[in-house]
């Protein structure tokens, strides 16, 4: 493949009407995805204690894509932060791939922070979750002209857990495309997939969420939810929350709320003398703060708040 072609990524596990343009995202590339993955720089991480492993990558013109391999044998946290130096307006395409395997009885916290500027970033993550182990995934995406985020958890072991929370704020022409999938394979598995974000002027967001109950996963529960605040008229919010089920003894549910902020909340805050612009900012930042509180890492909190231009943690 030499000429630029559109590669299909973030595929919806079961396709629907083509005219909705949600079955997959198109990623312009002159190579196949397999070829692109082969070129990634391998990074192997074996977190061994409770101190978070923090990996910062500044996206520059010569930055290579990264292929992280996590072997998780103990409760641990890995924080991947993708950044751009101040004044660097590089329009770089970057691919980040993570493959994880979580040993039995272990909780692994994977944090992905996207604070790049003009880069086009594709982060795809797949994790095998064994018996009694948990993947707690938190993603904050504030940067990039275009960002493609994918998180897949294979809940292979009985009583394994996938808990994913994604927060985003989009401004000025930004585009975000997400695909989160929980495959319930073992018995009594649990998944919760949440995305919560804000669309400001001329922005577009695509959200795909899937809980997939595979035959044999008796006793499993899966929930998806999405909250989207629409703050301008020239925004586009596209959502596909799927529940797939071939097992009787399961509970799956989805809830979504898309639109303007609650009128009662606005009324109350305005009655306290807060300007509407400030209210919107507060509501937006609150979504990111919810993600930061899951991470509980002060330096990351400061970094994100700096990016947002709000006060540092005290």
């Amino acid at each position, binding site marked *: 493949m030499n000429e630029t072609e559109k590669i299909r990524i973030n595929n919806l596990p079961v396709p*629907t009407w083509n005219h909705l343009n949600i079955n997959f995202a198109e990623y312009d590339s002159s190579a196949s995805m397999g070829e692109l993955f082969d070129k990634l720089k391998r990074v192997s991480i074996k977190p061994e204690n409770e101190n978070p492993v923090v990996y910062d990558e500044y996206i520059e013109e010569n930055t290579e894509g990264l292929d992280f391999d996590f072997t998780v044998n103990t409760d641990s946290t890995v924080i991947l932060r993708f950044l751009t130096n101040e004044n660097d307006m590089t329009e770089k395409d970057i691919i980040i791939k993570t493959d994880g395997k979580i040993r039995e009885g272990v909780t692994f916290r994977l944090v992905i922070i996207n604070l790049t500027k003009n880069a086009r970033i594709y982060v795809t993550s797949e994790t095998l979750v064994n018996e009694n182990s948990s993947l707690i995934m938190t993603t904050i995406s504030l940067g990039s002209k275009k960002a493609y985020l994918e998180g897949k958890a294979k809940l292979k072991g009985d009583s394994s857990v996938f808990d994913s929370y994604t927060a985003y704020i989009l401004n000025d022409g930004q585009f975000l495309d997400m695909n989160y999938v929980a495959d319930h394979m073992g018995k009594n598995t649990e998944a919760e997939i949440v995305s919560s974000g804000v669309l400001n002027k001329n922005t577009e967001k695509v959200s795909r969420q899937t809980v997939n109950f595979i035959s044999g996963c008796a006793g499993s529960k899966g929930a998806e939810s999405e909250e989207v605040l629409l703050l301008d008229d020239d925004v586009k919010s596209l959502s596909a929350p799927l529940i797939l089920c071939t097992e009787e003894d*399961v509970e799956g549910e989805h809830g979504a709320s898309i639109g303007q902020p609650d009128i009662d909340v606005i009324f109350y805050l305005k009655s306290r003398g807060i300007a509407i612009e400030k209210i919107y900012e507060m509501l937006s930042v609150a979504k990111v703060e919810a993600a930061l509180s899951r991470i509980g890492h002060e330096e990351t909190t400061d970094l994100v708040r700096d990016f947002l231009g709000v006060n540092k943690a005290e």
Partner: protein
Amino acid sequence: MKEKTYIEDIDESIYDFRFKVDEEDVLGRGIKSDLIDEISKEKGDPEWMRQLRQKSLEIFHKTSMPNWGPSIEGLDMDRIITYIRPKAKMRNKWEDVPEDVKETFERLGIPQAERESLSGVGAQYDSEIVYHNLRAEVEKQGVVYTDLETAMKDEKYAGMIQKYFMKLIPPTDHKFAALHGAVWSGGSFVYVPEGVKVEVPLQSYFRLNAESAGQFEHTLIIIEKNSYLHFIEGCSAPKYYAASLHAGCVELYVGENATLRYSTIENWSKNMYNLNSKRALVEKGGKIEWISGSFGSHTSYLYPTSILNGEGSSSEFTGITFSGNGQDLDTGAKVIHNAPNTSSYMNTRSISKSGGINTFRSEVIVKPQAKGSKSSVSCASLMLDSISKSDTIPVMDIRTKDADIGHEAKIGRISDEAVFYLMTRGLSEEEAKALIVSGFCENVSKELPIEYAVEMNNLIRMEMVGSIG
């Protein structure tokens, strides 16, 4: 050990009778240009319709099969009978209808329903309408209810039909809309003038008797400003081993502040590929109410669509789908909010058992101009065993901040706690589970007209037999 409750498949034996088809009445099989012209000639189409058929055929050949949804590989288009000549012309007295055809509809209870609870009835047998009648008092109000072919030849309505026919669902919409445009036959035309409220429903019943046949009826309903109509559609067929095809088309035009309720109980036999298209265009302040029960068919693609084109227009979709052994039913609805302050509500229930596959598929599109619009979607699915399948695939496409969109979906089994509670109140386990399943459907069945609610209850016939699983 958990006890399993067995729920019977829908009993379709009351629909499973047939009469022989004379081969000389079969115009042809497959989808070919000369056959399309022959159908057109047989029906005495005006030239514009003949051209539309040929154009649709071209589109059909150019359009690919859907790459989503259930498999339709078992459908051999070359074997499908596209048109069967009627044994007699359309009548408006049952005693004038040929005996075997009349017997068919009597066994289905249509003449009795007409006497007891309907304003008018249309009955289609294979390719053509064989009976149509409208109560005199309704006719006096200016209501028109006839077959499409008759209306097309009446100069009062010919222009109207040319203006509206396949404009909401053009042949370019999808492959089976194109097929419909090429081979359509039969169906109904309804016109309700401004301000007229048709208090008692009209009903069309579609019966496919022949083996390996297709039914391609077209329903065109236009209701003017401030009018009201409840239209009921029913369908059935005897079971054959070879695949049959239903690719009908329903186009509904709802005028300003008018309300149209369109109820369907679909109970095709389980060799049927039901690839039907339904769409409504709703003007300012108008309302479309879809009531949809899907029980039959081998494979279904069915998504009634509401285009809310006028300010303050609204749609409600209430649906229930029961999928049993060998069935793959892909059902749901679409709504396009195209004007300010429009609202839509979808409420569906689906039940899967004995290896049946249910898919709820929906789309809600809110265009930038549809400010102040609201939409709420609620779908619940019940799995009765672990060899069945149930998927929900909703999509929301929102393009204005001034919208209020809610969606909720649930999937699960009969709750042990609910069964336990009811058993503590003196019910047996079977009674408790039967009550829960009935309650699960009740939200939807209460929206059906009473005669159809009774039919639905007969259809489901949930025989709860406790057995140690």
